[in-house]
Structure formats: structure tokens, C-alpha cells
């Protein structure tokens, strides 16, 4: 089967899920709840195979790559489902498989693929730091393993079964798998714009056995960096899904809402605005597509493409969200109108893993402008 056929099949499958297993009403009902998503729905997502797309076949997954996961996530994001598919099945799964503990991979990856383990990567400590090496949390060698101390923020999802925590060891960054009920671990939540939650961790001398070290000092920074960048590209795909649906809804509204005896979509001021939003969406699509093409040939350019994708998709997602509200008028400022849910999801996705500005800065550092001759 060609990649295009596979992707189409995957998209159709998500379409089936959207029609059967989720709805905007469900999304609304889960807002601000604890943990903010539904484990029964998570199980259905796993049964469909999407939690295992990026998990190697030998560990019970499908062993597919970014374009397939992107296709699923783009469609999935259109449903606004709060289940943390990208955070768990991309970020956590990729961190695990990028690590150097094969026994742990063999133990955890099948559980992730099966939907039995929800793991969250806890790597960030400050509001705009996306460098996995710039951390303060420490890992001290202790009897048969490490003792972790420090704090983490923005770990997705809150309510995970285990956290993959990064920490500074002697020889570099390590990643350790910490059970949610580990002694010395405190997990709080912070509420996000869309009603979902992120975890805030405090680690006070948390003991981790060697067997639970996902990545040792030699491998941690690289494993995390790669996983984060790949997930960042996939977050771009999610943003593309959200902005596409938001734009569709807005165009529909422009066709039906009548003022001054004509559809508001007939006013040129709004038409041009809609066209500009469409162009932003197309740019997002282009850069994502190109990222997939180039990364298939040159995996080393991952960070650069991640920053290109995230800069564009964050900006476009936010702009389409904001302007969709404006085009809706008063009803756009209500909670009962769905368009606000898309804006809020765009806000969350564009802030996650580094927003547009953070990635523009990184892009500039990775691809310095040519000096004038």
C-alpha cells in the first residue's frame, strides 16, 4: 500500500471514531474535570491502534512513522477530544524508544500501545525553556539507582500512571520512569485554557531503580530532544486539524448569517479576511508536508523543521482562532458557541512545546541569516 493510501485509511478510521465515540458535548462535559479525559475512550483509541502507531512492531506497535501519526492526529484534533494521544503515544513512546534501556522498552511500550499505560514526559521547568538540557532537577546516584530532586511543569497529561522525568546526572541528562505513587513525588495540576490539565511535579529525593532508567546520561538529552522535536511537528499537525475545522465552521457561518438582508459572507471586508485565513492554513499544510518529505531523506534536519512547522502552525492556528471569533460577532464570545472551543485548543497547542516566538528564536539560531557580502 502506498503511504497516501495508508494515510487515507487512517483518516477514514478517525472519521469513524469521530462519528461514533466522541462529540462536542462529550468534550464540553470533560472540561475542568479530573483528570480531564476518559480512560474508556482511551481504550477505544488504543483498540483502533493509534496509541501504537509509533511503537516498533517488536513491542506490539505498528512501527509506522511521522506522516502516518500526523494524519491521525490532524483528524483526531478536529474532534477536540481531550485524550492525550500526542503526548502519550508520540512524546512518551518516542522518549522510551529513543532511550537505551531495552528491557524497560519491552516492558512499557507494549502497555502504551495497548492503552494500558498512560505515561507523561516531564522535562520542562520554566515557561519558555524548550532545551531539554537546560534543567535544574538533579539525579544523584544512590544505592542501585538514582535519587531525583527538583520540580517540573507542563507535563501532559495530568493524571498519568507514570512520569518520564528528566534530571541532571553526573555525565549528563538522564530520563527516569517514576510511578505516580512514588515516595517523595507530589503531583498537582494546572488548568489550561481548553479545560484540560497539565501536571506540575515536585520531586523530593525520589528513588528510582536502575531498571527504571529510560535513558542513561549518555543518551538522555538526545532521546528527549528527538522525541520533543518529532512531537512538535505532530503538534503542528494537530494545529492544522484545529484551524481547518475552525475555518470550515466560520465559512459556514459566513454563508448563513444574514445582516443588512444579505449573508455576511458577501461583504468584501470579510471575504478578504477569510481568504487570508485560508492562505495561513495552506502555508501550515505546505510546511508540514515539506517537513515529512525532507525528514524522510535527512533526519538530521529535525530540529530545524520542527521549529519551522511550529512557528507557522502556532501563528496560523491562533490567528484563525481569533479572527473566527471576530467574524462570528457576539455569538463568538459565548461559551455555547463551538468556535470558542477551537480558539482555546489552538491556544493550548500553540503554547505547548514552545510557541511561535520560541521556535522563531530557535529557527534563527539553527539557520542564521546569511551575512551580507
Amino acid at each position, binding site marked *: 500500500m502506498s503511504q497516501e493510501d495508508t494515510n487515507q485509511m487512517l483518516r477514514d478510521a478517525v472519521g469513524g471514531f469521530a462519528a461514533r465515540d466522541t462529540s462536542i458535548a462529550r468534550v464540553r462535559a470533560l472540561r475542568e474535570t479530573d483528570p480531564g479525559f476518559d480512560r474508556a475512550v482511551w481504550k477505544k483509541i488504543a483498540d483502533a491502534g493509534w496509541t501504537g502507531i509509533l511503537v516498533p512492531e517488536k513491542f506490539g506497535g505498528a512501527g509506522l512513522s511521522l506522516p502516518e501519526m500526523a494524519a491521525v492526529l490532524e483528524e483526531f484534533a478536529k474532534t477536540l477530544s481531550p485524550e492525550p494521544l500526542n503526548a502519550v503515544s508520540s512524546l512518551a513512546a518516542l522518549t522510551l524508544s529513543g532511550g537505551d534501556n531495552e528491557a524497560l522498552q519491552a516492558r512499557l511500550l507494549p502497555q502504551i500501545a495497548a492503552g494500558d499505560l498512560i505515561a507523561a514526559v516531564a522535562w*520542562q521547568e*520554566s*515557561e*519558555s*525553556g524548550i532545551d531539554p538540557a537546560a534543567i535544574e532537577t538533579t539525579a544523584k546516584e544512590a544505592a542501585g539507582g538514582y535519587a531525583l530532586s527538583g520540580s517540573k*511543569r*507542563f507535563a501532559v497529561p495530568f493524571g498519568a500512571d507514570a512520569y518520564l522525568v528528566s534530571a541532571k546526572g553526573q555525565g549528563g541528562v538522564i530520563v527516569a520512569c517514576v510511578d505516580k505513587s512514588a515516595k517523595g513525588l507530589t503531583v498537582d495540576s*494546572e*488548568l*489550561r*485554557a481548553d*479545560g484540560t490539565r*497539565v501536571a506540575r511535579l515536585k520531586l523530593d529525593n525520589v528513588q528510582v531503580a536502575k531498571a527504571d532508567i529510560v535513558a542513561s546520561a549518555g543518551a538522555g538529552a538526545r532521546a528527549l530532544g528527538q522525541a520533543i522535536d518529532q512531537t512538535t511537528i505532530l503538534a503542528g499537525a494537530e494545529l492544522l486539524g484545529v484551524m481547518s475545522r475552525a475555518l470550515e465552521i466560520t465559512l459556514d457561518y459566513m454563508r448563513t448569517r*444574514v*445582516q*443588512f*438582508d444579505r449573508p455576511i459572507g458577501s*461583504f468584501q*471586508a*470579510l471575504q478578504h479576511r477569510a481568504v487570508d485565513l485560508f492562505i495561513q492554513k495552506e502555508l501550515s499544510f505546505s510546511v508540514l508536508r515539506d517537513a515529512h518529505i525532507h525528514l524522510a531523506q535527512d533526519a538530521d534536519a529535525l530540529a530545524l523543521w520542527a521549529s519551522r512547522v511550529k512557528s507557522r502552525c502556532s501563528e496560523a492556528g*491562533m490567528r484563525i482562532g*481569533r479572527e473566527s*471569533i*471576530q467574524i462570528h*460577532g*457576539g455569538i*463568538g*464570545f*459565548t*461559551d*455555547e458557541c463551538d468556535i*470558542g472551543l477551537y*480558539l482555546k485548543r489552538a*491556544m*493550548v*497547542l*500553540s*503554547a*505547548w*512545546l*514552545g*510557541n*511561535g*516566538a*520560541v521556535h*522563531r*528564536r530557535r529557527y*534563527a539560531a539553527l539557520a542564521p541569516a546569511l551575512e551580507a557580502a
Partner: protein
Amino acid sequence: MQTRDWDQMDDEAFRLEVRKFFQQQFPEHLRYPPHHLSWAQTKDWYKKLYAQGWAAPAWPKEWGGMGLNGSKMLIFIEEQERHGVARTPDMGIILLGPLLIRFGNEEQKKEILPSTLSGDFIWCQGYSEPNAGSDLAGLKTEAVLDGDEYVINGSKIWTSYAMDATHMFILVRTDKAAKKQEGISFLMLRMDTPGITVRPIKNLLGVEVFAQVFLDNVRTPARWLVGKPNQGWTMAKALLGFERISIGSPKLAQAGLEKLEQVARQQGLMKDPAFVDRYNQLRLDVADLGSTYGRFAEIVKRGGTLGPDVSMLKILATETYQRLTELTLEAAGDAGGLAGKVDFNGMPIDILSPFYMARPSTIYGGSNEIQRNILSKNVLNLPG
């Protein structure tokens, strides 16, 4: 209650006195509220203002106002915004009072103004309808004279403070045969009249500030018609100019600038030249908005009337503020996705509320698209 001749006072002295009062009397916990506050939350403050004789700065003294001239009125508003003094449900003071004073008869003034000033009557504005927003003149809610009462049927929407209001002033259609704008009348009614149902509507922040109001055979005395029948449109329009200049004040944007700076410092962004350039661009936008505001304020101070070009002030002020809240969100990094007060190294800052509150400022009071239509038609004289 103080009745003083504010006109005698020098502008700067007046500014300082107003500032001192707000600083000493306004409850600290209500400053810069994240959203519009209810009557229950602001009642005590309103009573204080009333006791001071400052509840209606723009009303003439004979009706209990401060009788401020344009210049002092602007100072009053500026100081309010500078200190983050929260708005109360003030539609009666800001919109209805001036309209009654100008177009109402003596009985109406005596019956309505004192109770409105004291806060016993809380008003909401029933203009917009589900199918008449930008095209307000297309409103369909109908009033038919029956003896000495009007009988009203229809529905109003986005009515701010409808849950708090004891009364509503409303635009209704009284002549279906006339041209759209010429068949509209201005009525007042009590919110506890049988036939009224209020459905509160949650806004983007999840707070119920506005509502849909259903009117089913609602009866209101004919003496509560303001002006002549079918002149409601002209009267309502006559008051728009001042609304646009007060919405165009640069003070809100200045407060936004301070917040942006606070967040940017926390994030170490003031060392990033690219950020600082964008920050300075916004600083200049705010400064130049201030200069433009100054031009219009001068006209008000001289007692002149504002032309259609005042629409540019609303566009500038609201869009500058929106961009400020957007950059603040961006400066907050990953915390820009967090709701409520966010912990920035121990300093709690609410990032999202200003961003949300800035959204509808380009929608209400005549959307910015409508303001641009006004400018292109009436100022640039483009064909259309």
C-alpha cells in the same frame, strides 16, 4: 453630598483630587478585575461614589451629577482607568441618563433620574437582537399601543447586566410600514413585568455577564416612551460619539503595556532585541493612540461635536489593546496556555483574561468592520 463648582477648579488639581479619592476609597481587591463585575460585587463601591456625589460625573448638577465639562470628564475617566477602577452596571448612568436629560420630559426625569443615581434602578440596554446586530435598524421586537400601555413582543440578546437590572431601556419597532430607521421608538420598562424571561449566557471566560431577554406581551406605561414615537433611532444615534471617545481612551492600553512588560521581564525577554523591537512598536502605537485621542479630546473640551472620524479612535484603541494581550500571551511562553492566575516565579499573573476581554471590544459598540465602513463612506467619501 458635596456639590462643588468643579469648573472653578484647575484641571491638574482636579486630577489629583480624583486620583486621591480612587486610591483611598476603591477596594484594592476589585482593581483591574479580570471581567465585568456584577452589581452584588460593586454595590458597596457604588454607594460610596454616590455618597461622595460622584456617581454621575457627566450629569448636570441639578440632577445630582458633577456637571463636569468635557475636559474634566475625560480626566475623570482617565483616572478611573489608570487606577483600574472597575465598572459597575452603569448603563443607566452612562447611556440612559444623558439621553433622558436631553430628550425626556420633566415627569420622566423626576421619576427616573434620582432613583437611577441612587442605584435603586439598575438599567440594561436592550438594543441588539438575534437577527439585528450590526444591522441594528433591522430590529423586529414590536410594541403596540393598547390604551395607555405599550405591549411588547420579541427578544433581545447580548444584553449586558440583564440579570442585575431592575429596568431596561429598549428600542422597539412601532411602525412596520415606515423605512427601517424611521419606525423605531425608545421605551423603558421594568424587568419584573410579567412576560419577561432572562436567559443568562456564559461568555468565553465562562462567566455570565450578558443574557438573552424574551418579551412576551410585556406591558409598559405609555408615559415611558422617550421622545416622540418613531424617533428612537435618531436619539440613540445622537449619543454614540461620546461612547466612541471613551472607548478610545489610551489608558486601558497603557495598563496592558505594563502587564506585558511585567511578563517580559519575568521571562528575560527584555534582553532579546527582536522582542524589544516589537515591544517598542506597541509602545509607540499606544503613545500615538494617545496623541490621536488628544485631538478628539480637545474637541470635546471645547464643547464641539465629534465627526464620523472618531470611529478611528475606537479601531486604534481596541486593536492596539488586542495586539498587546496577544504579545503578552506569547511572552508568557508555555504559561500562555494556562487559565486563571499563573505562577511566574512566585508572582501570580492572569494572562488569559485580558486576552479574552479584548476580543469583544472589536465587536460591540459597532464592530470594527462597521467603523471602517463608516470611515470609508463618510470620511474618505468613497463610492458605495
